[in-house]
């Protein structure tokens, strides 16, 4: 190829891509606007017009009733617990996976991702068999001499947390593995060399450096757990009502659409607030690191 033909168009080509880069986003923006923003604005509008005119009655109804407030707190509590559980269980798995040379790594990756291959309904029924009154867990615990009620986690908050942890573990593991793999292995060696034992290396070097991964994993799992419907509905049912269950009940059974919309908006705002505050705190830390 001749030199002029090869090199001259490079600069204009670059700026052309720059000017038209927004065009690349058009399909995504269209889908996002039609399927997400528009219905969301619709729900918001519905929640503000309970009887055809603007009013905050639906919100007032929600917060006045102690039952509704307890559902909100339960949703937040279950989501936080699920996040913490996926972090505790997922971190060691991520450490294992981030060491690429391990034998059997592929098998572990498959096992971690496997829950995502199965439909939420099928997976939940699996848990019902395990957690139910005469389920595998109760029977196993009974064999160990524990009271027969010990393993009955169906229709309890604990059961919901267990099932949600199972579903969302892959997201946490993937986020953590990514950030662990980015850590230079020489850093752990340097810390060892300077006199740190295995625990000190983890607490002072490895863990602090995975905080960005912990943050993204935690936000993903928290949001998914807070908005999850199928798993809490099947495992917890009416005994463990969560916000999405309330939306379903009010919207499709009671047909109080304005109230259902208000519940949805409250859940959205609560989730956004919690992740926002968390991100600010985490960002503040890394901001201090980058600044000065």
């Amino acid at each position, binding site marked *: 190829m001749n030199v002029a033909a090869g090199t001259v168009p490079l600069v204009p080509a670059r700026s052309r891509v720059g000017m038209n880069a927004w065009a690349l986003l058009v399909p995504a923006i269209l889908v996002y606007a039609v399927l997400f923003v528009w219905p969301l604005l619709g729900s918001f509008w519905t929640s503000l017009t309970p009887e055809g005119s603007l009013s905050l009655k639906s919100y007032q109804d929600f917060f006045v009733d102690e039952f509704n407030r307890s559902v909100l707190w339960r949703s937040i509590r279950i989501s936080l617990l699920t996040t913490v559980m996926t972090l505790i269980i997922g971190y060691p798995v991520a450490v294992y996976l981030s060491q690429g040379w391990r034998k059997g790594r592929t098998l572990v990756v498959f096992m971690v991702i496997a829950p995502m291959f199965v439909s939420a309904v099928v997976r939940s029924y699996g848990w019902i068999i395990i957690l139910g009154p005469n389920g595998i867990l109760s029977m196993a615990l009974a064999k160990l001499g524990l009271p027969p009620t010990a393993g009955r986690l169906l229709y309890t908050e604990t059961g919901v947390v267990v099932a949600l942890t199972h579903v969302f573990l892959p997201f946490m593991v993937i986020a953590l593995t990514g950030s662990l793999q980015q850590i230079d292995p020489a850093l752990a*060696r340097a810390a060892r*060399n300077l006199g740190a034992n295995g625990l000190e290396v983890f607490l002072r070097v490895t863990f602090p*450096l995975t905080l960005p991964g912990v943050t993204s994993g935690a936000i993903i799992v928290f949001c998914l757990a807070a908005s999850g419907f199928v798993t809490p509905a099947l495992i917890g049912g009416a005994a463990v009502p969560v916000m999405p269950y309330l939306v379903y009940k009010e919207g499709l059974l009671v047909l109080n659409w304005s109230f259902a919309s208000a519940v949805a908006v409250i859940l959205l705002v609560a989730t956004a607030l919690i992740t926002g505050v968390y991100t600010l705190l985490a960002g503040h830390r890394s901001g201090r690191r980058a600044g000065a």
Partner: protein
Amino acid sequence: MKPHLEISGVTKFYDAFRAVDDVSFAASPGEIVALLGPSGCGKTTLLNVIAGFLKIDAGAISVDGRDLSRVPPHRRDMGMVFQNYALFPHMTVEKNVAFGLKMRGVSRKEIGQRTQEALEMVQLGHVGQRYPKELSGGQQQRVALARALVVRPSVLLLDEPLSNLDALLRKTMREEMRQILKKAGITTILVTHDQEEALVTADSIILMTAGRVEQMATPSELYERPRTVFCARFMDVTNLFEGRVVGKEAGFSVVDTPLGRLQAEGCLSEVGQAVTIAIRPENLSVAANDGENRVRGVIVRESYHGAVRRLDVEVGGCMIVAHVPVRRCVKGVGEELELSWPADRTRILPDEAGERSSAPSSPRAVAAE
């Protein structure tokens, strides 16, 4: 002097591959030893073995007579500077340097004082509050050195410490580093693939290949008296010729080579022995009588290298390379000239395969070609 660090018969396998093969050497207190060799020669593996990051398969590592082979890395009391410095990115420079002291349970007041001293030693007293990524490569290198030295380790290990710096900075840093190390009086093992860095920085050099020690010598000895063809090649001896010892004359051996009959020195002097002759390009002179050995040839190529001019001269079908001071040579390509050099600058080395002395066409020698 009693050895401070002693490595005896250390062997390390990666599966079936012998990465370090029966290496033994000793370093006296305060000595700077360079492990020099091409990549893959086992020098970095040996350093990691000394630091305790890799378990050895045979042999022993001891400091002051205490066997450390089974001691975990964090209790070996060795400082290390990594090739990419491995500074903790989430800690300030000061916290990086203080890390080792903190792990040793030193009091807070003493940590502050010693950290500041260490940073001042490397002339970085003013950057304590910054983060590593805000420093230049040379500054990061010095922080890594301060972090390793502040704990006053018994042995300092340096893994290619200057390889990430640009050429100019590398030259100043290696002298600065030698000064700092000598001032601290610390026994140091320096891994490098750069022969010049080893020559300038180290007190003694261990040249390694294929996991083994090829030669251990002082810088000048290694440079002037390489013991094998591999050493000679690695130390930039470009002129290597096969020859055969034919006799003795005035204290030197007489060797028949494709260049003609040369006088040379070296421990192999048995008549009839097949040997390799090594001549440094800079020992060749364009004056007609600068030594016992003399050849006539034609310049086929020349290139300018700043301080010297490189001449590729054809002598009887062989190429010989000479580095001559730029002003000394006025001849150009195609012209004939005479080269001369002293017999004591003509080294006799064992033939490449090492054991070809009696049978020039043995299978091993063929394989080595």
